[in-house]
């Protein structure tokens, strides 16, 4: 059966008011769940799995995948408006999205995030449709050494988050990496840095740390600079980016979409790593890299298109081989089994209506997400006009409940507050907090794969495995090059004056 026939079957599944209503409902739930800190895409999908039980398998999976693809966009809404990433990958969006809001350009931030998400999602789905089976086979050939190299490449992106102070960024990322070692070692089962406290056996969860570092720290910083008079941001530009602005960032969106899809294919890599890496690569390729971190539309576009396209990538190993690539994929795998389906090569042959129904639904879900987002942005932006005296207490309330919602533990709430204080302290003295998140996200992937690689093949594996060696060298280069450029720029701008150098 050729692709056209398969798509004809797929679209026939979703044409009708009921499937379209289900897709719309899935997109709305996905956006709302993604926007709410503490509710991850996997939580949103998991919560609706029971509701999907009475539906036909095709409609059930269409609902759940619509939630999945919309939730990554949803995370960008709160990231841009109140610097509270709704999903971990939206932390990268916040780096440029929130400065845009502070400049009164919330409309541009949200509009760029929406369009980048839509295009990213579409590219991810297109690659999924065309290359699912061969890509899945390649991904599974990656050894632990290759994964370690990929994770280290992700760590090398710290140089792009430095805003001129690489030393402080590296200290921040090392803090995140050290934090991630707290808890039970997943390989040997040894308890590390837990001080015999069972609350620390699982270490610190990502989401409370993320909410604390990004949202709570902003509120504490506001307390420090509080003038006694609450302001309202009255000059809010809710205009979307112009066509000319979009044309400027088209290559960023396309490049980041492809990067995001490729990274999403690797089990365990995920949207967050995709967002960080594509942000870094976009900054290097940009004609205005100095704007990154200060409200660059390219920065927002790079992060959002990558995290949305990674959904298509993550579905590649799931649909083609039955291997979940992310937590959300694991929940989707459960949903497949609930409906008596086994994802893998046979699914394409025996149930093409399911597979191509999902593909068709993802295309339509992207379009519905775009339409809902265009309308919804006008409402979302009104959040920014809420008086500070109301907004900041509500941000703290959202942070607290979002942290608690992760696992129903007050320890996560305490961690969120603690990271909020750390985030305030770091920001006060010029340390970026995004590298801490990067360290926490990548720490486990770096360590587990490094140790597995060494246990299997010894330390020599990192130069025997050609792919790992190449990626490690690229990572080293991508880390050193910005340092060299920064040093050279500093030497040129100093021009022989004898003033002390700023590090």
């Amino acid at each position, binding site marked *: 059966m050729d692709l056209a026939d398969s798509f004809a079957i797929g679209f026939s599944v979703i044409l009708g008011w009921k499937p379209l209503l289900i897709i719309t409902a899935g997109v709305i739930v996905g956006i709302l769940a993604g926007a709410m800190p503490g*509710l991850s895409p996997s939580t949103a999908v998991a*919560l609706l799995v029971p509701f999907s039980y009475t539906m036909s398998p095709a409609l059930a999976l269409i609902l759940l995948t619509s939630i999945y693809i919309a939730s990554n966009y949803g995370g960008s809404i709160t990231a841009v408006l109140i610097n509270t990433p709704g999903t971990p990958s939206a932390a990268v969006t916040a780096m440029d999205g929130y400065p845009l809001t502070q400049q009164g350009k919330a409309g541009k931030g949200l509009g760029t995030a929406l369009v980048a998400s839509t295009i990213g999602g579409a590219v991810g789905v297109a690659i999924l449709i065309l290359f699912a089976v061969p890509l899945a086979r390649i991904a599974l050939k990656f050894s632990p050494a290759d994964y370690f190299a990929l994770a280290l490449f992700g760590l090398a992106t710290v140089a792009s988050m430095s805003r001129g102070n690489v*030393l*402080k960024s*590296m*200290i921040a990322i*090392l*803090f995140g*990496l*050290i934090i991630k*070692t707290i808890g039970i*070692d997943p*390989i*040997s089962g*040894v308890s*590390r*840095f837990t001080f015999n406290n069972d609350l620390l056996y699982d270490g610190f969860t990502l989401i409370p740390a993320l909410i604390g570092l990004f949202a*709570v720290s902003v*509120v*504490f910083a506001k*307390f*420090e*600079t*509080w003038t*006694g*008079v*609450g302001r309202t941001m009255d000059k809010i530009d809710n205009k979307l980016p112009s066509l000319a602005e979009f044309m400027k960032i088209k290559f960023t969106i396309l490049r980041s979409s492809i990067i995001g899809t490729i990274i999403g294919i690797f089990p365990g890599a995920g949207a967050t790593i995709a967002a960080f890496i594509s942000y870094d690569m976009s900054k290097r390729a940009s004609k205005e890299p100095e704007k990154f971190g200060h409200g660059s539309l390219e920065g927002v576009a790079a992060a959002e298109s990558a995290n949305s396209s990674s959904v298509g990538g993550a579905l590649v190993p799931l649909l083609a081989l039955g291997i979940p690539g992310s937590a959300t994929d694991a929940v989707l795998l459960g949903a497949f089994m609930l409906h008596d389906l086994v994802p893998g090569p046979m699914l394409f042959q025996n149930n093409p209506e399911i597979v191509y129904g999902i593909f068709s639904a993802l295309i339509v879900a992207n379009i519905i997400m775009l339409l809902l987002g265009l309308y919804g942005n006008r409402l979302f932006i009104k959040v920014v006009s809420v*008086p500070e*005296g*109301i907004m*900041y*207490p*509500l941000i*703290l*309330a959202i942070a*607290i*409940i979002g942290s*608690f*919602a992760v696992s*129903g533990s*007050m320890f996560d*709430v*305490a961690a969120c*507050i603690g990271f*909020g*204080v750390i985030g*305030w*302290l770091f920001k*006060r*003295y*010029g*340390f970026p907090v995004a590298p801490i998140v990067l360290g926490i996200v990548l720490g486990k992937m770096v360590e587990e794969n*490094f*140790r597995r690689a*060494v*246990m299997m093949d010894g330390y020599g594996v990192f130069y025997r495995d050609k792919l790992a060696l190449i990626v490690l060298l690229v990572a080293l280069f991508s880390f050193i090059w910005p340092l060299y450029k920064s040093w050279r720029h500093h030497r040129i701008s100093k021009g022989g004056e004898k003033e*002390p*150098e*700023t*590090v």
Partner: protein
Amino acid sequence: MEYFSEGTGLVIWFFLVFLAGCGTVLAFRFSKKKDYAGQAIIPTMMIAFSLLLWAITFSFPSEEAGPAVLPRLWIFWSVLLAGLLLLFCFMGKTDKDPESGRFGFLLTGIILTIVYFFAIEILGYFISSFLFLAILMYLLSYRKPLVVIIVCTGWVLFSYIIFYKLLYIQLPLGLIEDFI
């Protein structure tokens, strides 16, 4: 070093590191480099934190690619780079401290948040959230009673309906539990 990795030895090590850290910051504060005392806080804390954890790694099993390898690697680089930054602070080759802010108000906000944290367990999430929002809005100079009540009530209702009822997140009920 294994003596300092747990028990009494660890406590001693903690105090030694803590005193060294305080001494470093105070040395900056009362020297010609007092404009960099704040910048020295984070690298000093990182070094102290790293040294504390480094001592603990001696209680881990020592094996090739074991549980101590990566923590020690991160700790090594952390001490090295934080030490480098501390040196730059001492030489005046880094940014000066930012201007002082309203630390008193900040401390009040943090303490209020911590009190809210403990109040959630005692009074329950809904009562403590209502009170926390109302008090914080008052402190942030928002004093329209009707709006404050609407916002606080609205948030409590939202969190009850969405989180407690719809998402089955078992928010602590505290005092309300006795009446249910």
